[in-house]
């Protein structure tokens, strides 16, 4: 391409590839034109030295989007000193930023290579992350490079220019704001909330509504009931010894940040004898089977609507609220026993008891939880007032807004991200209301349902492309720094609001910087730079907890006014999806292909029900049913979930999108069709009828199979692949774990290699800490360039995840216990895969790694067959192939989609071609990077803990430890010295380097059968 120009103009010898080139004949130019049509137009322009250099920069940008795409405002890498922001080509830099979802805020650290973000990690300095990030937070990076993202300003569906919108925005008839409404998602951004204040000051009759399909609104409503004011609850899971989760999947999706898991796992770390006595105990009451339920010692299944009564009975039991109606139970009933034992346990724990309610539960349950905590004297929960004032928040506010829109009172509505046409409750009929608004402006990342319904659609910048900020619910703020200029010309909410209200500052950077530097004291620039560097604004005011007492009388009155649930009526409850959340990540392949932690479903959702309900309804797994209530109806395929509450269906939101990119097209069933304001999170009285149609679920584990078929003697009990014991059993007989499998004396016909010199890498995974949250899977996907294979290929059993999370049920189909087991490569010392490879494509390194030489692999798949853990993954097809359509980038470059999607790749890891085998490498690139750094520093040794594998790095529960097992003092060696350490399938003499620490549970002796 531009090479031809260089050879013509540069000094020094001229290199040419053909005589035609030398002569620069028109034919040759024509040939190059046709060969590289993408850059043809650039080619034909002048060929001065400046042009050449410009073109060079642009074409390098193609290869890696280098410095030319870095934003002009200063951003500061965290991986370097405050002042040494020097850029070395090829060296990765880490920048801090922040991400918020549903009111949860996590500080992040983003790895960039030559100016393009490649991996999201948690920011170790951010207290809500401590280095961890959720699966969704990490997966969000793929959306940055999504060629299906919205790239065009749309006016009534037609392509328009940003300037057109600017002109239109200045002509909006805002007046005193009587007809102006803003609709944003949960505000976590202090600077945006300052803009809100500014907007409302300027247009006093305007309103700003916060609505998000999944949010913490009921938690706030609960505190209004209990304390008379909206407050956030801050459960201290790390300090609690007895924890009750009332329909609260705080380890999973009911907390969109890794923070809760981090706290909870602190009460589960067993490193010594004393830790055994300190272990916490978790009780879960829920309808779906969540990972919180899986990690609970005791789980009680009931409909979502019944939890209220349970909470009331619990409150009565501990004497928290007087004058409650207690549901009569027979004494031998499971619920009664559970309740009685729980009451005793909570009272015993006193200050260390903690009752939490989930976001699906109505205000009264949150209030009851507060009352119970108060009654038992719990010190494990603190309440703070929201830093960002909460007015017009939640589904009721949205309902009011829709009413105003229908009544013609709204002339301008500015929708700041979100997709209400798709996600608003069905009975609000948001799209009809939107059509009545004269000026509707939608800012969104996708050309989605709302984008096409609104008069104006503005592409939204990805959070890695735009300036912003976010504060945790306690008020700790962090600056959202962009690492790359908007690829497709997106704008941020800040910029849109600033433009609409005619603010002086309209650039995101200026707004954010001004907001914060105005508050700083001393050397403002220095404090600003430090905030960027550290990823936390140290001067941001955190709210100190308030001493509040719940008003039990009000709670009792509210409870009496609540309708009573009837367990016999069919209930449907809604949940955020582990993949698409509320639908916003529907086009994200990584997340779609990350299996749901419990169901292992990918690329879709299902109407989950208990085996008993399935039989009672005369249905079979995969049957498509129609679920209806009044005028609202949807179709969904049934999937059986052992341990699910009876007479109840749980279904995840975020599927069945109509206007969505190619990835999310035709994925799953749209539960929003039956989600109404009166059955917002759950509702009873749904009718289900079989349609006679069938659907095939794609799941990464044969669903159901391991459940009850597998729990028969021959598979589950006699296969000690996951091992668990109670704390008591383990204390009494620590050998119990080791003795679960019989390992006869073993001998290999090949001479054994002694791995006793230098570094010997090994891994230990603590099943007690692991909650099964999926964060490690996405971390691995991102770090190791793992391809997305799609639904069809997953159904054929060809998913590529190097690290998978295995879920095992045991026990009764209605009350099963679940263990989640992360499974990377075991890096066997006597690796059965190495022995059988005919071309030595997989061999052992002197440091004990089972290495894979992709270039040498011919793809016989023999290694995968002979791998007892089946952790090897074969590239059955070219899974990296993507569309080759060309797309315009903002800087005026046209790029093939394939090139855009490949920008997310980690350049330290080779992308594997089709026909070769691949597998977990223990992140060998990270080992080598640390080794090189150690050498550069003139050190001889790599320090323990210096190397962190991607899965270990992100694990919020610190369940994964990696290091040198040749060093007896390394953390991993110490973990492996615990008696509960076991090697899975040790009887095969494969000598795995990855070992597991058995799952310990701490059940209440009173509830043990």
């Amino acid at each position, binding site marked *: 391409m531009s090479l031809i120009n260089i050879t013509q103009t540069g000094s020094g010898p001229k290199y040419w590839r053909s005589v035609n080139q030398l002569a620069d004949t028109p034919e040759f130019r024509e040939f190059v034109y046709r060969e590289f049509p993408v850059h043809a137009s650039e080619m034909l322009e002048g060929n001065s030295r400046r042009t050449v250099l410009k073109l060079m920069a642009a074409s390098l940008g193609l290869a890696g989007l280098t410095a030319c795409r870095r934003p002009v405002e200063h951003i500061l890498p965290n991986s370097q000193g405050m002042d040494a922001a020097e850029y070395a080509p090829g060296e990765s830099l880490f920048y801090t930023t922040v991400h918020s979802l549903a009111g949860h805020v996590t500080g992040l650290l983003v790895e960039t290579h030559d100016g393009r973000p490649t991996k999201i990690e948690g920011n170790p300095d951010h207290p809500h992350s401590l280095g961890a990030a959720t699966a969704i937070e990490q997966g969000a990076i793929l959306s940055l490079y999504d060629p299906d993202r919205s790239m065009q300003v749309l006016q009534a569906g037609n392509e328009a220019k940003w300037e057109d919108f600017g002109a239109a925005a200045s002509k909006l008839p805002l007046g005193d704001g009587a007809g102006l409404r803003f609709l944003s998602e949960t505000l976590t951004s202090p600077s945006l909330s300052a803009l809100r204040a500014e907007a409302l000051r300027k247009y006093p009759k305007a309103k700003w509504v916060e609505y998000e399909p999944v949010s913490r609104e009921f938690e706030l409503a609960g505190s209004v009931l209990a304390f008379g004011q909206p407050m956030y609850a801050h459960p201290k899971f790390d300090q609690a010894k007895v924890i009750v989760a009332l329909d609260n999947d705080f380890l999973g999706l009911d907390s969109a940040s890794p923070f809760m898991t981090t706290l909870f796992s602190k009460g589960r770390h067993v490193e010594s004898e004393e830790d055994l006595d300190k272990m916490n105990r978790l009780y879960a009451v829920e309808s779906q089977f969540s990972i919180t339920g899986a990690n609970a010692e005791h789980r009680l299944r009931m409909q979502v609507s019944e939890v209220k009564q349970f909470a009331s009975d619990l409150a009565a039991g501990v004497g928290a609220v007087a004058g409650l109606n207690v549901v009569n139970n027979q004494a031998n009933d499971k619920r009664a026993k559970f309740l009685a034992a729980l009451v005793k346990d909570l009272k015993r724990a006193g200050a260390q008891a903690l009752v939490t309610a989930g976001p699906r539960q109505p205000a009264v349950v949150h209030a009851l939880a507060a009352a119970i905590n108060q009654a038992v004297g719990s010190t494990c929960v603190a309440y703070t007032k929201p830093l960002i004032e909460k007015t017009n928040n939640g589904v009721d506010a949205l309902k009011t807004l829709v009413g105003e829109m229908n009544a013609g009172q709204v002339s301008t509505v500015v929708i700041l991200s979100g997709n209400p046409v798709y996600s608003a409750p069905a009975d609000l009929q948001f799209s009809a209301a939107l059509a009545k608004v004269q000026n509707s402006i939608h800012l969104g990342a996708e050309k989605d349902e709302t984008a096409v319904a609104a008069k104006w659609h503005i592409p939204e910048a990805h959070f890695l492309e735009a300036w912003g900020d976010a504060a945790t619910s306690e008020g700790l703020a962090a600056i959202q720094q962009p690492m790359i200029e908007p690829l497709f010309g997106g704008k941020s909410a800040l910029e849109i609001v600033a433009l609409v209200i005619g603010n002086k500052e309209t650039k995101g950077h200026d707004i954010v910087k001004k907001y914060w530097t105005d508050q700083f004291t001393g050397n403002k620039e220095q404090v600003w730079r430090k905030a960027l560097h550290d990823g936390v604004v140290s001067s941001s005011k955190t709210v100190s907890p308030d001493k509040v007492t719940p008003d039990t009388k009000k709670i009792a009155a509210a409870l009496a006014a609540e309708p009573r649930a009837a367990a016999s009526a069919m209930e449907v409850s809604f949940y955020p999806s582990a993949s698409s959340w509320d639908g916003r990540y529907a086009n994200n392949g990584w997340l779609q292909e990350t299996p749901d932690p419990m169901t292992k479903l990918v690329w879709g959702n299902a109407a989950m029900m208990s085996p008993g309900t399935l039989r009672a309804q005369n249905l079979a797994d995969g049957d498509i049913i129609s679920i209806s209530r009044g005028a609202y109806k949807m179709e969904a395929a049934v999937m059986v979930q052992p341990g699910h509450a009876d007479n109840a269906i749980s279904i995840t939101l975020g599927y069945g999108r109509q206007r969505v990119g190619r990835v999310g097209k035709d994925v799953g069933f749209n539960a929003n069709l039956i989600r109404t304001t009166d059955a917002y999170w759950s509702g009873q009285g749904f009718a289900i009828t079989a349609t006679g149609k069938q659907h095939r679920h794609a799941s990464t584990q044969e669903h159901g199979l391991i459940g009850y078929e597998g729990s028969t003697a021959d598979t589950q009990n006699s296969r000690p692949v996951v091992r668990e014991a109670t704390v008591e059993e383990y204390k009494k007989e620590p050998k119990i774990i080791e003795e679960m499998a019989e390992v006869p004396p073993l001998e290999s016909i090949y001479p054994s290699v002694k791995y006793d010199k230098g570094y010997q890498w090994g891994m230990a995974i603590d099943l007690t800490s692991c909650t099964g949250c999926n964060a490690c899977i996405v971390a691995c996907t991102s770090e190791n360039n793992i391809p997305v294979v799609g639904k069809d290929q997953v159904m054929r059993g060809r998913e590529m995840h190097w690290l998978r999370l295995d879920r095992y049920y045991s026990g009764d189909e209605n009350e099963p216990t679940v263990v989640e087991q992360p*499974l990377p490569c075991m890096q066997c010392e006597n690796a059965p895969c190495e022995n059988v490879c005919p071309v030595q494509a997989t061999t052992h390194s002197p440091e004990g790694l089972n290495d894979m030489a992709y270039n040498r692999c011919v793809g016989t798949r023999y290694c995968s067959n002979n791998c007892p853990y089946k952790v090897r993954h074969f590239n059955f097809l070219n899974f990296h192939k993507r569309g080759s359509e060309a797309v315009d980038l903002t800087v005026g470059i046209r790029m093939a989609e394939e090139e855009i999607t490949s920008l997310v790749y980690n350049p330290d890891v080779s992308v594997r071609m089709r*026909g070769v085998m691949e597998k977990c490498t223990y992140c060998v690139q990270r080992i080598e990077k640390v080794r090189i750094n150690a050498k550069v520093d003139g050190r001889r040794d790599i320090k323990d803990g210096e190397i962190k594998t991607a899965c270990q790095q992100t694990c919020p529960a610190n369940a994964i430890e990696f290091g040198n097992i040749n060093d007896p003092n390394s953390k991993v060696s110490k973990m492996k010295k615990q008696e509960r350490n076991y090697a899975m399938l040790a009887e095969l003499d494969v000598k795995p380097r990855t070992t597991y620490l058995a799952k310990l549970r701490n059940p209440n002796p009173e509830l043990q059968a």
Partner: protein
Amino acid sequence: MSEAVRQHPALMEVNPPLIRAKDYHDLTEQISEITEGDVFKTPLKYWITLAITGSITVLLGGMLTFLVWNGIGVWGNNRPVGWAWDITNFVFWIGIGHAGTLISAILFLFRQKWRTSINRSAEAMTLFAVMCAGIFPLFHTGRPWRAYWLFPIPNTDLNIWQNFRSPLIWDVFAVSTYFTVSLLFWFTGLVPDLATLRDRAVTRTKQVVFGLLSLGWRGSARHWRNYEMSYLILAAISTPLVLSVHSIVSFDFATSVIPGWHTTIFPPYFVAGAIFSGFACVMTLLIIARWALNLNNIITMKHLENMNKIILVTGSVVGYAYATEFFIAWYSGNTYERYAFLNRALGPYWWAYWTMVTCNVISPQFFWFKKLRTSIPVMFVLSITTNIGMWFERFVIIVTSLHRDFLPSSWGYFKPTWVDICTFIGTIGLFLTLFLLFARFLPMIAISEVKGVLSYEKGAFKDQEVVAK
């Protein structure tokens, strides 16, 4: 033979003169005529058949191109089932090939003279089957253009020696040796017959081609001596190959760690199965050839009956092996082994297992009865079911063991795609095409050898023996 026969009259029973013809010349005429004459005057039914099998061969080419273009993903293989129809077909075809070597080498050494009527076509069948088999290990690799790395040939792009611990490398040597020796053996046996065709040739092309191929054969005593010697040596070399090839193929499975594969019984079990399927395939082909080419006088009922007896024996050996596997799985007390076998019989692939048992163990038992053993329709049907059964045996061993191994979390299920099916059908097309071409252009009965068991005059064979001596 005569001395031995005189001392042990019982040998006469197993080696009676079998075939009937007027005289040597008549026999030569009968066999040679098939290969001679104007190609365009070959009966239409031949051309129709060839057109069908040829089209199927083209289908094979198409499937393989499609496979290489897109990747192994066009097949149904997955994780955990890394090998499925590919290796099933490989073992199936290799197994079929076994009858040829067994008939030509082992029966030769055991002086089973009745083999002479069937050995040529059985050997040809071996070669064609090994060709079909060879397609699969080559094309089952993810990057077939790199498959030559499995051979210890100098290459600058790899610069590394093969892994001699891998049974796949043993396979490479076993199969290539087998093919080479089988080809030599077949060709050596053909030389006198090629000379016959050369001498009878009427067109220049045939004279030149057969002249070159017959290596200057003049039928002199020295030629005959060298011929007999080399034939004997090749038979001696081939004999261990009959046992080794399928033993080594079975090592692909036996040396692995997968329950259901990791068993010491595999080598003899595989060899017995191979002979079983090979004979069944020879049977199928010969019944058709005998009928189509009027070879009833050369391929007699006695031949067919003898082969049926071998099918009965090997089928029973295979059945015994199945039983032993189950016993050992139970006796070992190993959970994974026990489950692997229970899962074979009762798991999701139960239908494959019971198809295999029905076809391989139950159906050959009909051959206990002489009436059934000598009935052409019965033996034709049973030869087909045996081959179906033996294909299923390999499928059962490979797929049912892989689909549920140690960790229940990684269990899966394999379903073939249309490409799997068409590829397999394609190899059948290739096999039949090659066999049809062979039957038309080369003597499918060893003319020189079969004369040794010709009975053209009652009692006259004694003189023949003397003459031959």
